[in-house]
């Protein structure tokens, strides 16, 4: 074996050992920094019906994200993700207009989540709601 091929062999071997060690160190690091399950990410959220006034919006955490619940007409409830579909700001409810406004870039959404005006490309994400006695089951 001449010098240059021996040197190449050594470089490749050292590179392989280094890459293996880097892999061994990277796995714990990746696991350490990965988001931890917070629980309730698949579950339903129960909200007392009395908390949602007619024409008012109730903001709450749903599976780790902000969501909004409103009584559109008496006895008819709707829930949406409160994250604007444009750039991720949190929408506001304008009770006097009966619509949502995104304060970042003036995106407007109707009370059924559809885009009325502004830059949002999609309607708000709809979350299923069911009435169970005095409670509302979201999700």
């Amino acid at each position: 074996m001449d010098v240059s091929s021996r040197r190449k062999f050594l470089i490749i071997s050292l590179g392989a050992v280094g890459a293996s060690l880097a892999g061994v160190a990277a796995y714990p690091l990746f696991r350490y920094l990965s988001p931890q399950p917070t629980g309730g990410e698949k579950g339903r959220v129960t909200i007392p019906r009395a908390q949602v006034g007619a024409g008012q919006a109730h903001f709450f955490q749903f599976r780790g994200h902000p969501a909004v619940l409103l009584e559109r007409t008496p006895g008819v409830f709707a829930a949406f993700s409160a994250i604007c579909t444009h750039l991720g700001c949190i929408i506001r409810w304008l009770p006097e207009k009966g619509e949502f406004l995104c304060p970042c870039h003036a995106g407007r959404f109707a009370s059924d989540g559809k885009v009325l005006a502004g830059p949002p490309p999609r309607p708000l994400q709809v979350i299923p709601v069911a009435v169970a006695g005095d409670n509302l089951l979201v999700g």
Partner: protein
Amino acid sequence: MDLGKKIADFLDVRLGVREILEQNLTKYLLPRNINSWYTLGAVLLTLFTVQFASGILLLVYYDPSTDEAFRSVQRIMNEVPFGWLIRTVHAVGANIIVLALLMHMLSVLFMGSYKSPRELTWVAGFLLLLVSLGMCLTGYLLPWSQLSFWATTVATKSSEEIPLIGDLAVRILRGGAMVGQPTLGRFFALHVMGFPLVFGLLALFHLFCVRRVGISRPPFGPEWQPAAPPTTFRHEEHPGGIPFFPHYVAKDAAVIAFFLALLLGVVFFAPGLFFPPAAFEPADPFVTPPGIKPEWYFLWAYQTLKILPSEFLGLAVQGAAVTLLLFLPFLDRSPERRPARRPLFVTFFLLGVALFLALSVWGHYS
């Protein structure tokens, strides 16, 4: 032409990197009789890199409040995947670093490498040791365990004996009359920002001094002769020496591997070595656990305070020892570095090491 060569050519045309690499690696010659003790600088650089990386990772989950600190550390140890590994590496790493720092300091003392023209290298190195001990002391409080709380209470209380400003010093260190949230806040700030910043600047200066003055030649062998202290700046060259790369880098890598193996050996096979039972209980300011003692590297100081008739005398002795070591190159001005020709120094050196060990063992068992 392969990509690596293209990138190297690109950088070489613009920054002359090949010349820099040659000057600092293959054409950087070290004395032929250089020994393994000279690798401890590279070992410490590696260990501190591990320590900084693991410290930054711990910051992701650590919460520096008295209500949450202990719980957040428990969470890191028991819930976060591989949190136990990161935290144990950090805690054990601190101990291995102190061991390597002491070995580095003792080898420099024994070989007289602190002497002219390397006084500034020594002073910066010794200050690095003190800052490292500061990082150990401040880091000890952060888990907010019984051990942390009471070790810090005892350590900060000893400053009370400083004449005139003792009470003020304790209150400033603690941020109040007792160890509490203000203490945790300031120790946290010092541990993660203050000391590392000072450490980084000192380490840069230390490395600059080492490179600028040149590596000292080990004072062994028939050809070594003491030289008169220089009157003008001169970089110490070693013509005919061994190249730093690949020869000495291989030796550096071997000793670094040894220290990393020691670190991981303790982490995997004796993870509880530096965690007494009081480290697993949350801090309780109303219950002092029995037998609280500092870490092994502070035991000599702890025992000195115990055996001397007054705490003031103990502090004075410790202060004198630290000051003597800091300014040693300005006191010991003889150009002779061969240990066999420095019987008085070697006697004091051995007595000093023996005293450190004896006080530490005594402190541990007392």
